[in-house]
């Protein structure tokens, strides 16, 4: 975090926002206090889902669509499809 001295001042370009800030500081609060309180009032966006978790969820969602009762084990498939020399039957 920057020290307060090294922070750049904020420039309020909107006349409307500048006017509101002027009104809000009439009670003695500083501009910084007003802005900090305003920032606290704004809800934060939902965090981005972790990419690994997203991929895992996507994989599991697709795999859930398989009917496992109709899928042979690899050993069953190998015995049926490949001969004793490991070549396709």
């Amino acid at each position, binding site marked *: 975090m920057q020290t307060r001295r090294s922070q750049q001042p904020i420039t309020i370009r909107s006349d409307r926002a500048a006017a509101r800030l002027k009104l809000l500081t009439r009670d003695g609060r500083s501009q910084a206090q007003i802005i900090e309180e305003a920032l606290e009032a704004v809800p934060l966006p939902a965090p981005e889902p972790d990419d*690994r*978790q997203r*991929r*895992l969820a*996507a*994989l*599991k969602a*697709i*795999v859930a*669509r*398989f*009917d*496992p009762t*109709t*899928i*042979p*084990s*690899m*050993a069953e*498939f*190998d015995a*049926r*499809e*490949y001969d*004793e*020399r*490991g*070549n*396709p039957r």
Partner: protein
Amino acid sequence: MSEDGNAVVVDTSALVALVARERGSDPIFNALAESAIWLPAPVLLEFHLVTAATGNSPNPAVAAALMARLIADGARVRAFDGDCAAAAATASAFYGKGNGLGGLLNILDLMVYATAKIMGLPILCTGKDFAATDAIIHPASRRD
């Protein structure tokens, strides 16, 4: 998806373990979610054949969706080229079922073995076949 320091060659058996809900599939799910995946082209065919084995089920379409999902998330398909064929032919003398020396690998296994060997990557798989070779076995693999 992470880069090749965390890359893995996926065998059909790992994919079948997932879709058949075999025990030990959670580590395979995790490995697929966090690795840079290489799919040997023959594995795409064999996985399709396994899921189509009983016929008249939606499984082959779901298998295609699973492959599409993996590829959309960064998995790459490795073509079985001349170098792979030569490596598979060499390996057949040591590990092929037809070598008369007790080898365990069938022709598809030899293709996966050769792909992984050429790329210097571990194989994500289940079963004892690859573990009986000098291939690097990914730690998420199930060895029985």
